[in-house]
């Protein structure tokens, strides 16, 4: 692996586009760099350590669920009035995380943001695992989880439909649709890369597994044609879902009666928050992994810079929403509404509110500075804080509103129990376990897509030379482009 000509591609030079991939941009080098990670006979030491910890936390999650199911929801700290606490907070938090992947792969794809190719696989994987974690919470938060299937409309001897007026019902559809489409999108996008892994497989088992997963991909022009059509269609299908899922999740609150929940701003506010938290999570995961797997040439400083900018933009949107909530509360003249926000900032949960404001509004302001956007450790710390802040945002919305609503006679206080804390920790364990398995066995960067944005690919794409135009030397390796994936191994 040769030293790339430049490390920092985050400068904008008028008239010239910055390279999206650095270093040795030959197709073979890209394949080698990505596929070799999934092909190592033994994982690196850090992977084994992290995986053990994650797996242990997953076991903790399972133990907490077993305890919950045998004893009852009372093992959590919930009560009346605060009948939702960590459960729904975690649900909204994880669904929010699950936004970045599809946003990056679908929306940025439609907008032809080619820099997305280096990170979209990774982000989609994160989405899938986050939605899995999210899906757990509504399922386990019910008092009688063994009847959860009643939330699905299915023909039954009770002749009962679920209540289609309930936002919780809409959640079921929104999240399950989102999960299905995201999974499909992720998988379809991975087929060419799976075929590469299949072709490079050295053991029988890998050949069979990757062979089955690759669905007989041969890289023919017809395959590519169909593949790109499907990918485009799925992107078009997934795009509205990105917006709808969190809008629907926000309806859980917005459609209700409670001051602090009942607000028309919630759908866009939640979507912005979801993108915010999703990008923060992508960064949190990407920065150490990029370092650990030496992917700095594929996931360049420019990628980090771009994501930091999105973080800053969404932080401003979220901050605006925080502000406008206070304005509407005051402007409405409704004293219940006004008190709710007053209480958020000064009441018993003020500490949570101010953590939220600090992490989500104050901290991202450092991303006005390029230095912060392009220095990985600053970004890592910043994105971690945003994750914390976004978790607290959901906590503040769910808990402060419920703890003090209309009648002072029923005000209450909620304190989480150790079971809830361990369940939250366990959900991170599950998330990381799945994620580490993904890193270990699947191509974590979309090789085929990245190849399409390296300069030598761009040259052959006819007159349109858009992204990936490179100011350096233009190589002439015509046959490699036409030859497909299997021929570029030297």
């Amino acid at each position, binding site marked *: 692996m040769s030293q790339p000509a430049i490390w920092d591609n985050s400068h904008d030079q008028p008239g010239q586009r910055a390279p999206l991939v650095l270093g040795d941009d030959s197709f073979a080098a890209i394949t080698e760099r990505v596929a070799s990670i999934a092909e190592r006979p033994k994982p690196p030491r850090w992977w084994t350590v992290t995986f053990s910890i994650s797996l242990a936390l997953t076991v903790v999650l399972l133990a907490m669920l077993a305890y919950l199911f045998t*004893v*009852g*929801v*009372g093992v959590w*700290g*919930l*009560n*009346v*009035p*605060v*009948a*939702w606490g960590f459960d729904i907070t975690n649900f909204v938090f994880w669904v929010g995380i699950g936004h970045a992947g599809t946003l990056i792969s679908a929306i940025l794809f439609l907008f032809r943001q080619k820099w997305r190719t280096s990170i979209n696989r990774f982000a989609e994987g994160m989405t899938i695992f986050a939605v899995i974690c999210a899906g757990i919470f*509504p399922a386990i*938060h*019910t*008092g*009688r*989880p063994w*009847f*959860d299937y*009643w*939330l699905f409309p299915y023909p039954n001897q009770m002749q*009962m*439909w*679920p*209540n289609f*007026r*309930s*936002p*919780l*019902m809409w959640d*079921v559809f929104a999240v399950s649709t989102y999960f299905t489409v995201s999974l499909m999108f992720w998988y379809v996008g991975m087929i060419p890369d799976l075929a590469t892994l299949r072709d490079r497989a050295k053991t029988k088992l890998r050949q069979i597994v990757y062979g089955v997963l690759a669905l007989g991909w041969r890289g023919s022009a017809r395959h590519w044609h169909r593949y790109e059509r499907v990918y485009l269609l799925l992107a078009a299908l997934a795009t509205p879902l990105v917006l709808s899922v969190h809008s629907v999740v926000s309806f*859980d609150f917005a*459609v*209700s*009666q*409670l001051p602090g929940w009942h607000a028309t701003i919630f759908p866009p506010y939640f979507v912005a928050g979801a993108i915010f938290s999703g990008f923060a999570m992508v960064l949190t995961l990407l920065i150490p992994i990029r370092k650990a797997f030496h992917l700095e040439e594929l996931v360049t400083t420019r990628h980090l810079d771009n994501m930091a900018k999105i973080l800053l933009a969404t932080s401003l949107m979220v901050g605006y929403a925080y502000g406008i909530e206070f304005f509407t509360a005051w402007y409405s003249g409704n*004293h219940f509404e006004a*008190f709710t926000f*007053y*209480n958020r900032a*000064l*009441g*018993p949960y003020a500490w949570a509110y101010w953590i939220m404001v600090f992490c989500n509004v104050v901290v991202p302001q450092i991303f006005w500075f390029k230095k912060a956007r392009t220095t990985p450790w600053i970004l890592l710390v910043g994105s971690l804080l945003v994750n914390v802040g976004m978790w607290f945002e959901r906590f503040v919305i769910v808990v402060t509103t*419920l703890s*003090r*609503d*209309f*009648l*002072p*006679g*029923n*005000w*209450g*206080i*909620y304190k989480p129990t150790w079971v809830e804390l361990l369940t939250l920790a366990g959900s991170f364990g599950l998330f990381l376990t799945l994620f580490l398995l993904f890193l270990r066995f699947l191509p974590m960067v979309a090789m085929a897509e990245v190849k399409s944005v390296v300069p030598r690919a761009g040259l052959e794409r006819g007159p349109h030379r858009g992204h990936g135009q490179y100011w350096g030397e233009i190589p002439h390796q015509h046959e490699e482009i036409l030859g497909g994936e299997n021929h570029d191994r030297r």
Partner: protein
Amino acid sequence: MSKAYWRSLSELEDSPEFREKVAQEFPLLAEALTDPRTRRDFLKLAGASLGLLGLASCRWPKETILPFAGQPEGRIPGVPQYFATAMSLFGNALGLLVTSYDGRPIKVEGNPLHPESLGATHLWAQAAVLELYDPDRSRVVVERQAGQRVVSSWENFRQALASSLARPQARGGRGLWVLADGTPSPTRERLRQALSQRFPQASWVDWDPLLNVREAEGLALATGVRAAGKPRLENAGVIASFGADILLRHPSAVANARGFAQRRREGKNRLYVAEPLPTVTGAAADYRLAARPERLLPLLLALARELASSGLALSLPLPAAGELAPEEREFVSRLARDLRQAGREALVLAGESLPAAAHAMVFALNRALGAEGHTVLYFSAPPVQGSLAQLQQALEAGEVALLLILGGNPVVTAPHVPWSSLFSKAEVVRLGLFEDETSRLSRWHLPQAHFLEAWGDLQALTGEYSVVQPLIAPLYEGKTAEEVLALVLGYDSAGYDLVRETFAGLTGGVFQEELWRQTLHDGLWKGEGASPLTLTAKDARWVNELGHAPAAEGLTACLTCDTKVLDGRFANNPWLQELPEPLTKLTWGNAALLAPKTASQLGVRHGELVRVTASGKEVLLPCFVLPGTAENTVGLVAGYGRKAAGRVADNVGVDVLPLFGGSWTTSVRLEPTGKRGDLASTQDQQAIDRIGLEALGHRVGELVREVSASSLAAGLEPVAKGEELRPPMPWKERGFTGEYQWGMVVDLASCIGCGACVVACQAENNIPVVGKKQVQKGRQMHWIRVDRYFAGKPENPKFAFQPMLCQHCENAPCEQVCPVAATVHSEEGLNEMVYNRCVGTRYCSNNCPYKVRRFNFFNYFKDVTPTRKMQFNPEVTVRGRGVMEKCTFCIQRIEKAKIAAHNEHRPLKDGDVVPACAQVCPTQAIVFGNLNDSSSRVAKLFQDPRAYGVLTELNTRPRVLYLAKVTNSEEAS
């Protein structure tokens, strides 16, 4: 008997199921089994009984279980029957009607014919049915020899009694003492007289901390006759109470509350209360003075002087009242003026903590005002014999050979007497419902029969005779106090015969079966009726005693009995432990009550553990900062900290009685410890911060609306303005097609916040008790809660109560958000909860603006004992874990009434359906009925100008409306 059998038995020995099984088969064995000290006895008993059975046939004993060949008359399986009975509390009788399902009493209601009940009950009557089934009730006769507890039998006791009676018998009864609990039972009185004839030298003492002994003594001082006043609040226009909780802790509290509310609704009475600690009576007052306990006497004296100086013919040599504080002066002069104006509609009352002379003064005032005969009647007080001091002296002198304790629990309620050393000097026989602290010091413990399972009788203060009718055969081997007395007398008759003999005696000597049956049916026999006494005032030497009021200095502790477990007698009743105390909303324990100002002076925070020290004794208990408490006063609540009451009550709260040494007040020191106490309050579990208090102050006026008596008299504008109750909807409204449209009205003018509705609802609807830890987490299950609000200055706040239950909104927020349609609306306007369908997302509770839904966070009925199960109402589902529940408007009662009406081919009449809360309410604050019937009470009250809804601006269209509170202070008009 094979060895293997024994081994398996010993393995089983400690499992709860096994014990339960044994308890069902052999109560004696179970008793021995639960006490590890008597394992040897258990083996003996087990060996003997198993051996006998085993040798006989190797089978269980033969029992005859036969179905009825013919249906007994009037008995339809599954259809409840109602029996009239009566309960004794505060030395008075309360007539009851008890619902019995297939031989199990499950619910207590008031007897409308009984003058002390008028159809309602207090909360203790509601909880009595749970006491009957208390698994901790004692089941067997127990003898204690040299500290060893031995399970014995009635036969053994009978033999022992014969020998221990021998000595007193030879000496004309000298050495035989009876300590009874002051139950006003004519049979007991008859037996007492028989006892004094048989044993002329025997002594009898009545002791019950709830008896109004000082009132009787005061009237004896003033008139020479031990009498008791019966207030007639329905006639009273101006009421002055000096520390008397006439609406809750009073012999006639239920009738008082009814009378008070009747006039209050019309704005036709004014209540003045001077009291050290807030009570529900004080909370209902128009003028309330938070006065230190020492100040009550000077205030009463000042009132008398003020009245005398205004020309009232008191003709008493009144001593000087001393200096009054400005607010005291204002209170007294306003009160004096109002009392004079009210004339015979005036009424003055004093609390039990005031000395006898104060009660004499109250009598003199009432007489001078012309109130006697109109707002208060005097009847001869229930005969209370002797005093504890006499018994103590006799015990100390070794003059007591045999002490028979019938009920009560003097070891706990009178800790100033050194019982443990005294009991060793006599043979003590104790009859009690529980093998409690007194029993543990006694030689013999006898299980007492509960009033719901045994024959007895009671006489109300006003003379009505009620038979205490059993609803069920005694669950254990219990006997009543009268039956034990009969044993002593050697009568050997059952309670039934004893009562019939008494009845025959009362009704002219010959037993009249017809009259007896009528009495059983009606629940009372009026007889000639006790006529009010005509009292004549004696010399007024007692007046001088009024001048010797102790100086109000330092910190004074003021004793009060709990409003739920009373003196601790109901401590083992989980319903009452979990009932929120009306003012503090505390459950499961007591606290030191302090005024906000005093607390800050002492440097004590709300909820902090404090050390209270008096005369060398100290207690550690949490502090509760309660607005309205008198300054420099520590309110200490008796009834807690029991050590041997049962599994519910043991070590709940703190026993404060040892600080007082038998008096009502004592000078104390109080210091903070810095540690947090363990309070479980259902409201404001955390002390509310400043912004919360501000919001509360802002909202209370809107939630609990008030109108003044003068505006009521002048013709009231509707409290709910314009379209407030039914704001316009942007879409077509749902029509309701049901023939009946149910609605409820809660009159806040009547509600005194006593909490009887909470217990009644719990009894009717199988509502679980969750325990202290769960209450602290905010998971109490009561379907109806009574919100308590303070308004105004913390030194002298106004109090407001608001019963809050499912509002059965026509446009219910809960229904819309349930994903599985588990809560739906009926055509009759009921918001129905389908337990079977509920998956427990709790979304409905979140979206309910009233937060009246309750969630089963656990299976709260997991460990229900078989006896406890007998109380369950078979018409109401027992909810399992993970299910939401809430008020149903007692849908089982609605359906039952509909079926009855259907069978009689008639539509429902107004009053056919009465939910449990409405039925029990002493003040009739809750009215339920059909809104479609424009002549129904509820439909008329919906049109009342005082009617308004809570949070109607959310367009919930509640089917529960509130009637604005009526206040009658001059400031309000």
